[in-house]
């Protein structure tokens, strides 16, 4: 066979920089961005004061009536954007976890990170609420920080407990299920001892809701994504060599433990910030990377692809959640209904790996 297989693959080379151009994953990202824009407009159109697509686009470009401006910028846009960004962050976080652990079950929801973040946030809601400050600084600063802290503690605990001279995917998943149970029970304990009103609010939050999300929720997630997407993409190169067993990866010149710890911390921060903004929206981080992987036809979850697919998934789910019934449902209910069968499918399907 003399056909040059690798040399004929498209590449972008400028000076010392060079990148592989993979048509199918790139198409997924491009298509995903178009879908994101379309769903964003659709999400802003639908509601108690319906707008036409023309009105939405007009308003977004600076035109539109006062009323339209209010509906778009104050009511619907922050909520839609929070959904988009939270979905993107969860998708990216799940993609990193699944690539590193080489297991489609490894995602921040299964590994206890989202529940850890949830426990942190509910602590602030119940205790902050009884002090009467939950709507003020505690809500905008305390809640995301508590979520971040809770997620980091849970994630690092899983990593430390699963550590036996390296990381095995199944062990991490098992330890994660344990941590999820602990964090979940702690949250339920807080709900039991907390004030009834706070507990009710916390309950909606635990389900994962985008109701009443404003710009103060958009900003932290946007900042986290702005910083961490480039970081993840630079680290993503190492991710390609980390997809093997530890020894093979090390043989390829990867400082396995250092690189993996760094990427896991990035994934934990992404999931925690997203959870702090919208609550632990179920199954998004689990399903998104696998959907993106199947669309892109790659062996590893594509990072960019997972960001856009996650954004589309959460925005669409929220659109369904707030229109399907007379009263609004939390978005987490919709993603859970969609995600639960998928989780069962993953559990039933035997996991295969290419071994020699």
């Amino acid at each position: 066979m003399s056909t040059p297989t690798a040399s004929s693959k498209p590449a972008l080379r400028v000076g010392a920089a060079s990148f592989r151009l993979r048509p199918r994953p790139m198409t997924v990202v491009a298509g995903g961005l178009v879908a994101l824009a379309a769903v964003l407009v659709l999400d802003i159109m639908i509601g108690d004061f319906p707008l036409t697509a023309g009105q939405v686009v007009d308003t977004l470009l600076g035109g539109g009536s006062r009323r339209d401006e209010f509906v778009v910028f104050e009511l619907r846009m922050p909520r839609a954007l929070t959904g988009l960004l939270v979905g993107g962050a969860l998708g990216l976080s799940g993609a990193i976890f699944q690539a590193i652990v080489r297991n489609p079950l490894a995602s921040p929801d299964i590994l206890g990170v989202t529940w850890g973040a949830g426990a942190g946030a509910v602590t602030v809601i119940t205790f902050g609420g009884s002090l009467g400050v939950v709507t003020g600084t505690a809500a905008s600063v305390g809640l995301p920080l508590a979520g971040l802290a809770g997620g980091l503690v849970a994630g690092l605990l899983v990593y430390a407990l699963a550590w036996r001279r390296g990381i095995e995917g199944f062990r991490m998943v098992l330890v994660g299920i344990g941590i999820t149970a602990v964090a979940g029970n702690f949250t339920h304990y807080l709900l039991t001892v907390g004030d009834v009103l706070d507990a009710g609010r916390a309950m909606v939050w635990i389900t994962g809701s985008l109701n009443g999300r404003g710009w103060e929720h958009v900003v932290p997630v946007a900042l986290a994504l702005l910083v961490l997407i480039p970081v993840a993409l630079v680290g993503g190169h190492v991710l390609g060599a980390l997809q093997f067993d530890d020894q093979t990866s090390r043989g390829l010149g990867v400082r396995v433990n250092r690189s993996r710890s760094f990427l896991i911390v990035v994934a934990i921060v992404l999931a925690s910030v997203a959870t702090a903004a919208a609550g632990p929206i179920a199954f998004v981080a689990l399903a998104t990377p696998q959907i993106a992987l199947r669309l892109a036809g790659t062996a590893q979850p594509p990072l960019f692809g997972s960001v856009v697919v996650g954004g589309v998934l959460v925005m669409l789910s929220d659109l369904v959640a707030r229109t399907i019934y007379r009263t609004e449902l939390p978005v987490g209910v919709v993603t859970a209904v969609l995600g639960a069968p998928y989780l069962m499918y993953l559990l039933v399907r035997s996991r295969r790996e290419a071994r020699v």
Partner: protein
Amino acid sequence: MSVRLEASSLSVGYGERLVVDSLDLSIIGGSVTAVIGPNGCGKSTLLKALGRLLPARSGAVLLDGKSIDRMPTREVARVLGMLPQSPVAPEGLTVADLVARGRHPHQAWYRQWSSDDAAAVDAALEMTGISDLADRTVDELSGGQRQRAWISMALAQGTDLLLLDEPTTYLDLAHQIDVLDLVQELHVSGGRTIVMVLHDLNLAARYADHVVAMREGRVVAAGAPSEVLTEGMLLDVFGLDARVVVDPVAGTPLVVPVGSRHRGVSGAVAPGTSAI
């Protein structure tokens, strides 16, 4: 001929247990070395320590005279390629992508696919004869093809020093020969230095020009196959009663185990062969 890789009073262990015990070994540039020994004698552990996959408890591994522990991981990976015993790849990875990962030590996040990378991957695929399998996924390959794909990845790494941990495991005899012929070709045409762990003593005798016999973490004998593979060594290292005759094809030592059923008639040597 210079020493490429050297273990000097090297000890390696897991937890409390010392698996390699103050071992000395020199790998000469351009040689093919086979490490043999009974199960659990520490041959795989030795290979991992030589490839810096395991840290030395005491002593040192020297790569081209420099302590391998003090070299940056990436720099080691540009000189020394290592194929573990049962490497794992994610489901759905194509052969071309697997081999392309071998280029990792030569890449950076902004330099992910240079023309050198593409050329090295093409050359590695061609050398192992799997160019036409490039777009297949690794999991759908047969055992022999898969082993070629992994060797191809190690080749794309572009190192002239290769450590192979039982490259013939799980392969039938025809495919074992196939893989070892490939290893020999890499040695002869590419001048690569190769160290491999092998279970089959007769294949070790055939394909290596240097055999290292290990027992309980130490080197018991080292040298040319005919010097190392003797009846005395087999009894000493493996506790195996065997006759050693001359391989009628290659002229190298051929180990014929006696076994309990034939004990007593073990003096019989087929006409035309002679005991070493």
